[in-house]
């Protein structure tokens, strides 16, 4: 275990798809750190490697080289560290926000948040209490029992944010969270993320291609052809 002040530490992270002549370097030697409560944006055009970076930090995509440390736990060091329960780490330390909210269509707003808590072995009663509180805090108290199809794009994304926050993760990873929203709703979501980063003391890493949405972020990294420039 490392002893660090960072929620996310990435050292020389490299991800190569394929082998030999067909090998494609998606991320090359990425090195950066994100502190708890810090709001960081990764900007870049499509195909630049920003989602690969996010999935590598999100314990979904195994890095080819380099080191990834999440909340003092070394999860990747020249590949996944053996004996690490990636699912457990994802449950306990990471929260995900997606481009298309990815709410489970057959669960209500409340249940969509509860499922994240129940997966983390919280009792049903406690899960319901905490999910209700969260949704009310995000001004969705009147939408608890609505299915995702009955929610507006902005509301659905706020439910997705509530789900990501449910287990009070140290790190929140957001993949184009405003891509499916209009400008106003997109700005509202970004404002909410800024607020949450401060309130929850979570490191928030947002991948986006929309420069307008990253105003007020603590740091912005730009990715071009797999290389990061701050």
């Amino acid at each position: 275990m490392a002893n660090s002040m960072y929620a996310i530490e990435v050292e020389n992270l490299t991800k190569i798809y394929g082998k030999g002549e067909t090998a494609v370097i998606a991320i090359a030697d990425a090195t950066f750190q994100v502190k708890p409560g810090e709001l960081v944006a990764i900007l870049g055009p499509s195909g630049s490697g920003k989602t690969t970076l996010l999935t590598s930090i999100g314990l979904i995509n195994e890095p080819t080289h380099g080191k990834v440390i999440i909340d003092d736990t070394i999860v990747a060091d020249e590949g996944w560290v053996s004996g690490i329960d990636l699912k457990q780490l994802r449950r306990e330390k990471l929260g995900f926000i997606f481009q298309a909210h990815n709410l489970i269509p057959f669960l209500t707003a409340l249940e969509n948040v509860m499922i994240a808590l129940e997966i983390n072995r919280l009792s049903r009663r406690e899960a319901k209490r905490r999910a209700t509180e969260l949704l009310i805090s995000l001004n969705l108290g009147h939408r608890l029992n609505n299915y995702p199809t009955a929610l507006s794009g902005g509301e659905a994304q706020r439910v997705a944010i509530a789900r990501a926050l449910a287990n009070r993760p140290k790190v929140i990873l957001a993949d184009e969270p405003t891509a499916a929203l209009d400008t106003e709703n997109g700005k509202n979501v970004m404002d909410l993320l800024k607020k949450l980063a401060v309130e929850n003391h979570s490191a928030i890493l947002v991948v986006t291609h929309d420069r307008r949405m990253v105003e007020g972020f603590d740091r912005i990294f730009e990715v071009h052809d797999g290389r990061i420039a701050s």
Partner: protein
Amino acid sequence: MNLAIRDIRYHRGRFILTSIGLGLLLGVVMSMGGIYRGLFADALTILTITKADIWVVQQDTNGPFAENSRIPEDIKYRIKAVPGVALASPLSFQTIQIDRSDKPLRFFLIGFDLNGFGGPPVILAGRNIRRKHYEMVVAQGMKMEIGEKIRLGLHDYTVVGITGKVVSSSGDPAAFVTLADAQEIQFKKDNDAIRNDRQRIGANLSGMQTLSPAQANYLRQNIAGITESTHTVNTVVARLAPGANVHEVQERIRRWNHFRPISVEEQTKILTKGMIEKARMQLGLFRMVLLVISAVIISLIIYTSTLDKIKVIATLKLIGSRNRVIVGMILQQSLLMGVIAYGIGYLLILLTYERFPRRIVLEPFDLQLLFAIVMAICVIASFVGIRKALKVEPAEALGG
């Protein structure tokens, strides 16, 4: 949180329709089993209601149901005299098809001795036959009314009683008449045939110069009497005295060389193994094919339902869900579909089996076995969906 129930609740229309379709298929499978049991029950009905221990039929035949058997009626006296036999009664069987209200009416006519046994097992309406001629008791399945008349052979017969569900091994409803009437219907020649026979016998005898006219006349009357006799039956059934050994009685009758005494066990075997074996195999094959079709359908439904949920499964995996949550969701849906479809199929058969043209017998064991098979099919069928779900990468949750 039970994801399977939540998904079903959300997509209830699709789920119910699918379950109804599958339920209809399972209903057909159940009815096939019921028809098979019905064939079995039908085949043994007459054997059961007669309550005979031995069926004496023509030698070298498997009569009276599987093969023709003709034996003289008066053999009943000899059989009755065999040590160990308590009762012996002649029976006559024939299948008849007549037109009634411009529709064919097919039934199995049983002639029984009013002083013997083998008659209607129960009278549900009207009374049993009391007169020696022209009365009949019919099974419910013939849908006739008391007092209704039908013409059989040379005479009209009046329905005086209704008995229960008595059917032949072919499933035709049974009707009972006296033995004398049954013999007349089966063996009585028409007047032209009798005249022809008499003339032929007379012509043959008149050519014999060694006979005096008185001898020739005596012979002609006797021979005509024999050829015109209807005292033939298909079987004589016997009930044994308490403690009598069926094999010893069979052995004694077998020694007469002209008859075959068939025990109830042997007759059951003839009826079930011989007569309905092919039908049984056919139905069994149909059931297997339908079960395979059900398995394929369930697999396809579960597979496509899993494909519909790829993003959901990927999201669940991404937020750290254990595999057993996802496997449980798919397996529970498959099992629930099986349970509901089975229930629908069962309900369908329960509401309609009385209306089937042939008897449907629903045995609890068959139903339980089918339920277990359906559950096994659901588990196996869900494997294709589970396999697909386990291959889903969490990364599939990302992107638009």
